[in-house]
Each structure stands twice: as C-alpha cells, then as structure tokens.
C-alpha cells in the first residue's frame, strides 16, 4: 500500500513538473518584460494647459548598458484622471509603465489651487503605487520642474528626492511629506496638511542674490526693522558662497540627466523644453505650502518652515542667525542649535483650550560676521545670555507668525482638532468648530549654552 502511495506521489510530482516546465518554456503568461517596461521614477501633475483635466508628466528612468541611468520625460496632456494618463503612457510610448519605483509625486501650482486629492485619489486606490512616495508641490509647472538640469549627472526626480531626504528634514531646511502622511492628515479631524514647495532656480542666480523672488528670505527678514537684535532661523546667506555652503550641509542642488535632450524628449505628449541648456539648475524646497481640505491656503517662508520643523517635526539640529546690537553696532551670530526637548501640548484652562510649545535647545556659536579676539573664538561653545534671549525671542516670533498664518488660512497645522479628539474627547463636540482659532498659544522656549 505504502509503495503504491509513493508511486502515486511520484507520478503526481512528474505531472506537476511537466506542467511547470510547460509554463516555464512557453514563457508567455503575463510576466513583466523588463526590456519593455518603463520604470517611472516620478510623476508630475499639472492642470491642463488647454481645457479641463490634467497634464501628467512621467519621468522614466532609462537604464544604460553601463549600468548608469538617465531619464526621459513623457507628458500626457488633457487627461481627466491620472489613471487615464498612466494607461495612455502605454499607448503612446509602447512601454509598459511600472510605478512601483515612483518615489515622487510633484503637483503643479495650479493643481494645488483645487483639492489635490482629486488627483492623489488614484495613488490611494492603486496598489501599484506605493503611498510611501514623496509628495511635493512646485512653483509653476511640474513638467518644467522635471526638465531642470544640473551638471552632476543625476536625474531631476532623484535630485528632488535628495532635497527632500530625511536628512534634510532632520536639519529643518525642508518639511518632508509622504503620500500616506499627507492622506492621513487630509482624512483626519483636522483635514489639514503641508507639502514642501519646490522651486527651480538657475544656479548662477541662486549663488548670488538668493532672495530675488522671495524663495529665500534674507537673514534679516525677521528683524529688518531697527530691533536691537534679529534672528534668521533660515540659513544665513549673507556673506559668501563658502558661508552659504557651510550652512547648507546637504546638497540642495542636484543634477539632472547628463544625456542632454533626453529629458523631456519623451513621447508624443512630450514636453517642450529639451533641457539641453548649458546652465545648471538648483532645487529649493525651503518653503512649505499649507493645505486645508486639500486646497492650498498659505505658504510658509523658509524661516517659518525652519521654525515649524524645530517645533513639530523630527528636526533635531539646525543653524540660525541672530543679529545682536553690541556697543551700538550690529553683530550677526550664526548659532548651531541642538533641540533637546520639544513638546506640544493642548490643555484646558478655565474651560478654554491652551496650546503650549515647550522647546529646549542647546546653542553654540558657529560663526559671526566680525572678527573677534582669539579668547572669544576659543570660547565658541559659550553663548552669552543676550544672544540666547535674542534667539528665543526670534524663534517665538517666527512660531507666532506661522501660527497666525496657518490659523488665518484655516489650516490646522499642528493638528489641534485631532489632539482635541484624541486627548480631550469629552470637549471635542464643544470646541471642534472653534479650534484652532480660539486656542490660546503659549511659548515656553529656552535656549541654553554649554557651560
């Protein structure tokens, strides 16, 4: 009996093996042909140039036989949905697009004027696209942003993802959002969210007068009046290139394809600019777009972005400049701040909601704009009280500014409504419509020096 069962199993295995071999050698059962697959690394979505709908630009990585890669942009114009555009990509290019490696969704400025989830809906529904991809908005058109290039030889989507890396977030320069987190905010009680705002600038422009269009606020932007001291929490770019580079520890400019003409040379829907210009481009992401119910409602300046990061995100160290009046003379100090504690708490006092920012940071002088005696240079870890208080005050003013901006725009940037729902559920019904407007804000900010 046992022998018979063994024989039976052997026969079953032989049949199974034969079926498998048939499948294997027939080689035609809907598998991926890597040579006909377009690996989409980024998608840009703009409002249609003509009529309603959208223009969707896919940045497709083009592998070279050497293993290095470049990218091509393909734009599908005038589609009603993103899904339609993805299907269209296949028809127009003959390549089957795979979005599993899509790491960036870039929304054009006009798309952000309406509910962005009109277009992001596709990515939430579709399992082929990971909701771990980065989402950003850009000034102007996403298509044009993808066409930017720089001389180092990277593709633009990759350059933008580097700008939006978690390391950049850790230094407070940019606010980084992935699709999942953006969607969680959108569907939460607060219905709010934020996206980094990408701007492309010619490298030559950005190296010199960086603040031409307000993309970067000047160091003195916060206290340009006659205040005795002023703090710029944004990296100071007051002096020279070396100074700027030092204060921007991460690459903010990344190159795009060196394969000139490849960028934007895509398919029939193709984009205009070939990207073969000789000057390189730099991506800035230090501004932050605020959203309420999916619509853009405000724009945070780089200083406000940094303040927000220091108060609310994973940022644990940052550089900021503070101007202090010393002996009737303005001295600018650049401080390196290490956040040791950050807390945002919603409490109730006398029946009214109070929101308290508690921030503790350690500061040291990284630089000044004046030469100082060697003994002061040697004591660079020690920051005097005047400078510390100036830093605290400036940080507070920036936080107040961004709070005001967000509240006025209706954006619940600090997710107070959600906090109210989670931590004060009993009072939720009472205050849900008044938050965050009626909330009293308190700042408990303390900067200390090494001792």
């Amino acid at each position, binding site marked *: 009996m046992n022998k018979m*069962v063994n024989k*039976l199993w052997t026969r079953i295995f032989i049949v*199974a093996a034969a079926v498998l071999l048939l499948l294997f050698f027939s080689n035609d*059962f*809907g*598998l*991926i042909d890597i040579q006909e697959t377009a690996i989409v690394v980024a998608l840009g979505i703009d409002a249609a140039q003509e009529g309603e709908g959208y223009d969707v630009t896919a940045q497709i990585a083009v592998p070279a036989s050497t293993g290095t890669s470049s990218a091509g942009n393909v734009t599908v114009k005038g589609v009603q949905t993103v899904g339609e555009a993805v299907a269209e990509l296949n028809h127009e290019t003959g390549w089957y697009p*795979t979005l*599993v490696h899509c*790491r960036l969704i870039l929304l054009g400025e006009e798309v952000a004027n309406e509910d962005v989830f009109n277009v992001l809906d596709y990515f*939430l529904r579709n*399992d*082929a696209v*990971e909701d*771990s*991809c980065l989402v950003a908005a850009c000034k102007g058109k996403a298509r044009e942003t993808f066409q930017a290039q720089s001389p180092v030889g990277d593709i633009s989507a990759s350059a933008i*993802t580097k700008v939006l*890396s*978690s390391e950049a977030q850790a230094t407070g320069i940019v606010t980084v959002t*992935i699709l*999942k987190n953006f*969607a*969680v905010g959108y*569907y*939460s009680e607060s219905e709010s969210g934020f996206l980094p705002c990408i701007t492309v600038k010619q490298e030559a422009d950005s190296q010199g007068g960086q603040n031409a269009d307000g993309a970067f606020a000047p160091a003195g932007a916060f206290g340009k009046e006659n205040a005795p001291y002023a703090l710029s929490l944004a990296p100071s770019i007051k002096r020279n290139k070396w100074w700027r580079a030092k204060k921007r520890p991460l690459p903010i400019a990344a190159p795009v394809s060196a394969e000139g003409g490849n960028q934007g040379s895509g398919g029939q829907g193709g984009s205009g600019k070939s990207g073969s210009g000789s000057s390189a481009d730099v991506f800035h992401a230090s501004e932050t777009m605020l959203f309420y119910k999916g619509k853009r409602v405000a724009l945070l300046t780089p200083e406000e972005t940094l303040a927000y990061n220091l108060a609310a995100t994973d940022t644990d160290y940052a550089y900021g400049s503070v101007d202090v009046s010393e002996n009737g003379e303005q001295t600018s100090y650049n401080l390196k701040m290490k956040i040791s504690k950050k807390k945002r708490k919603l409490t109730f006092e006398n029946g009214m909601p109070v929101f308290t920012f508690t921030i503790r940071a350690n500061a040291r002088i990284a630089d000044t704009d004046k030469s100082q005696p060697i003994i002061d240079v040697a004591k660079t870890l020690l920051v005097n009280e005047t400078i510390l208080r100036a830093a605290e005050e400036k940080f507070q003013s920036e936080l107040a500014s961004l709070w005001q901006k967000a509240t006025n725009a209706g954006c619940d940037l600090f997710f107070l409504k959600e906090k109210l*729902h*989670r*931590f004060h*559920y009993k009072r939720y019904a009472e205050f849900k419509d008044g938050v965050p407007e009626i909330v009293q804000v308190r700042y408990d900010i303390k900067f200390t020096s090494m001792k």
Partner: protein
Amino acid sequence: MDNMKVRQICFYFIAMMPVVRFLVYPATLSYNSSNDLLFSAFINLLLEGAAVALVMLLAKKTKLSLFGLIENTFGKISAKIVYALFALFFLAAALLPMMEQKNFVLLVMYENVPSVISFAPFFFVCLFACVKGFKSIGRMADIALPVFAIAFVALILLALPQTDFSALLPIAGVPIKDVLKGSLFSANWYTEAAFLLFFLGNFEYEKRAALKVISSYAIGSAAVLLFLAVFYGVFSDIAIRQYNAVAQISKYTTSFTSLGRVDYLFIFALALVMIFRLCVPAQMCVHCICKAIGCKPFIPALAVNALLLALTIFLNYSFLEVQTLFTQKLWLMFLIFAYALPAAALLLKKRRRAG
C-alpha cells in the same frame, strides 16, 4: 500516527495563529470599530482563549479524541455525524482566509495582474499537507516559530518609527455597539479552539500542559494586539483602506533606503507561515471526512482541495460578497462551532464505558 507534542501546540498558538489575522482582518476591524479595534479584538481573543482553556481542561481529564468522546456519549453514528458537520465547518473556515491570501499574493507578489492560476499551486501544497496529517501541523509549528518570531519582530521594528499610538485614542470613543459589532463580524477569524478540539487524543497531556497552552495563546494574542495597535498607529484614519496590512506597515521605513524593500524578506517569511496555517483547516476537514467515512486521506484530500480550488476560481470576483457573507451573516455558525461546541465538549463522557 498523528502524534503531536504539547510544545508544538504552544508553538502553533504563538506563531501560526496570529498570521491569519494580519491581512484583511485589521482593515475590517478598523471599519467596524475604528480606533477601538483593540477592544473588539480583545473580546474575541478572550472568548477564544476561554474556549481554548476549556478544551485543555478536557484534555487533562481524558485521553480520548473528540471522536472517542462523542462515541462514548452518543454512539458511533452520532460521532460520525458531528465529524461530518465539522468537516463542512472547516471547509467553510478555510475558504475566506484562502481567498484573502489569494488577493494578498496577487497584489503583493506580482506587479502585472496575474490570473488566479498563479495561486492554484497552493492547493497542491495543501493536498500534500492534508495527506500528511496532524504530525505535519506539529512539525511545521516547530519550523514556524523561529520564522515567525524573526519576521514579526523585524516588521514591527521597521513599522515603529512611523507609528503614532495616540491614534488609538480616544479610548471608548466608539460606541460600544460598534465595538461589539466589530467583534461579532470578525468571528470567522477565530476558529483556533475548534482546531484544538480535534488535536485531543493526538497529544499526550503532560504536567502543566494547560498552563503552557494558555500562556502560548496569550503570547499569540499579544502579538495580534500589538500588530493591530501598530497597524492603526501607522494608518489611523486611512486604516480601512489597507487590505494587506502585513505588507503595508513597514514599507515606509525601507522604501528610501539603499537596500530597498528589505521588508519583503520578512513579508515572504510570514507568507510562508501563512501557507502552513492556511493548510490547517483543510487538514482538519480531511481528518473529519476520513473519520466520518473511514477511509485513507488521499481521496478526501484531493476532493477537498479540488473543491476549494474550484470555489476560489468561481468566487474570484466576489471576494466582498464572500467576506460579507462570512463576517456579517455566518457569524453565528462560527460562534457555535468555534466557541460553543469546544466549550460544550467538556460535558461529554470522559471515560470509556465498561464492556
């Protein structure tokens, strides 16, 4: 001989029991119970734990199998009828998890939408497992434990940086009715006590076996609750969209690393354990048929797997309907077979009649 060890049953509860609750269950629970999903799950776990404890109490008192116990009390024909009914129950209990895994496999392991045939080889493995009997369940539990432990811990650790446990607040913010509905409508994921009932007589009760098994069940339950908490902490308000929870929670940490989606390694490892677990109801079904009609397992195994394959293909586009049927309509059946009958088995005569 279909012998198992108490240790293997413990490992089963720690490693194989939780995996079947890592796919659609968290999203379904989020739909019904929202952020109070842990309470819904806890109610089910408590009930099932109680049933498990009662079965172990029964195991302490008798060396007979369930068949022997029923035969002792009601006679052989009754035993055969009960086994036939349980065979039908196990067949039903096998279907939804299989369809869940089919969807999981087709979505997570393939990029082009493959045909359902890609899932069909599962039934070949299941056929093999069915023929091998309970011994293979025990032995596989031994293999599954380290695989599960490593993969589960790794996935949870990868998910933790993205987890905001405050999403589970406010506690009791969801009406109790919804929490209970969540429990009731997820009864189909709680069939372990029924499995344990059929292990009776196939393992030797050793000292403190009941304590060991119940502790193991508690560990497995803790794993389920932790998973649910992390899952809801990661997704909060969009949790109901995440059908294949186990493949979703850890991707946010790995997506942008230079190694890429290393979490897939652990997801695949858990998929392997899921295969072992999915075979169990089919194995139980075959065991019941063999006992009911008194035959060798090969033919029933072939029939059961062919039927399950046919149902999977036939219901390929009706997952939601099947899910609704099993969760919202057939919950009573699951309550009876998975909770009530294992508990009622304690009332059966535990010693053979003299003569």
